[in-house]
């Protein structure tokens, strides 16, 4: 795939989620700019892409459940709750910083 077909974005994991992603907290990722059906890449596609191509841990259910990010994971798009940005329908833009944060319960 040529570079022209991808969007450069930064992905970050926090709250222990990095354990599922080879203990690497930050990824500079080239995301294909169209999803499987030729639509512009959105966060739903990003989540599938991470699950299929980046995540090596077999426990996929600790990241994705029922086709979306599992309960207890907050998705932050450029330092804002994804609910403010359209949730998984948000279309990924060049340079976006998208963060997946696992809720902590210890105290």
């Amino acid at each position, binding site marked *: 795939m040529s570079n022209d077909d991808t969007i450069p974005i930064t992905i970050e994991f926090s709250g222990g989620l990095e354990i599922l992603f080879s203990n690497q907290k930050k990824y500079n990722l080239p995301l294909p700019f169209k999803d499987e059906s030729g639509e512009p890449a959105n966060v739903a596609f990003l989540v599938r892409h991470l699950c299929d191509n980046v995540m090596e841990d077999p426990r996929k259910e600790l990241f994705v459940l029922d086709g979306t990010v*599992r309960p*207890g994971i907050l998705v932050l798009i450029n330092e804002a709750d994804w609910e*403010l940005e359209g949730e998984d329908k948000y279309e990924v833009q060049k340079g976006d910083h998208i963060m997946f944060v696992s809720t902590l*319960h210890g*105290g």
Partner: protein
Amino acid sequence: EEPSRWPLEKNEYKRYGRQLIMPEVGLQGQLRLKKARILVVGVGGLGCPAAAYLVGAGVGTLGLVDDDVVEESNLHRQILHSTARVGMTKVQSAMVALNSLNPNVKLLPHISRLTPDTAISTFKDYDLVLDCTDTPTSRYLISDTCVLLRKTLVSASALRIDGQLMVLNNPPSPPGDTTGGPCYRCVFPKPPPPESVVSCGDGGILGPVVGVMGILQALEAIKVLTQTPAASSVDPPSLILFSAYSNPMFRSVRLRNRKAKCAACSAHATVTPEALESGSLDYVQFCGSVVSNNDAL
């Protein structure tokens, strides 16, 4: 009794002088602190520093809820306790330390585990609540109770090298009023799968990580309590993320507002005082059977 010419005692001017002279607190702010009744739920890694700084600042009344006893493995981070008090209840141990720091604060012990049928009666006489507990079950129960009783909630959590902090239900408008701040269920409508929940006993915790989060809870509580009622412009809801080995260590992110379909704080709320007290809200079942290891951070 005749009202005193001086709103504070002479020794209080001395003790709180360094905050009294600041415009952010001032005499009015100090009087608001003195009138305030704060409840700290969980006297572990978060609750210890949070309680220490609230008592230092001169809140009028501080309630402490916990049914655990002090263990040696707590002491690297639960700085109100001591080696000699291993085996004592955490509430009693904390009261010894807090009373010696500031005898002017009235301390109220609640040596029991918070349950749906005791939550409302435990919370109702307090003005503001700090969630310093360590399981999803208690976090949903505490948030629901705060929504029902219209109390602002300062919620923090920590694990390993990470911490999180939110001020919820701020302002604490009645359920259905969209001007109110989001509650814990707005942010996390569904509990995490039990197998994804890691306790500090299993995952570990670095003392200063949970310490920072606890002190920040005290700070947020003091900010809420001392604000002038006129200055009603509440900060937009946000989440502070802390990660001790990241650069930057702290991030502040914007949170959603109240969720239109929230089970607790929306016009369609199914969480009611009756549902809570009748036991029809089964938090343990809702969250799956995460077994607490009895070791609040």
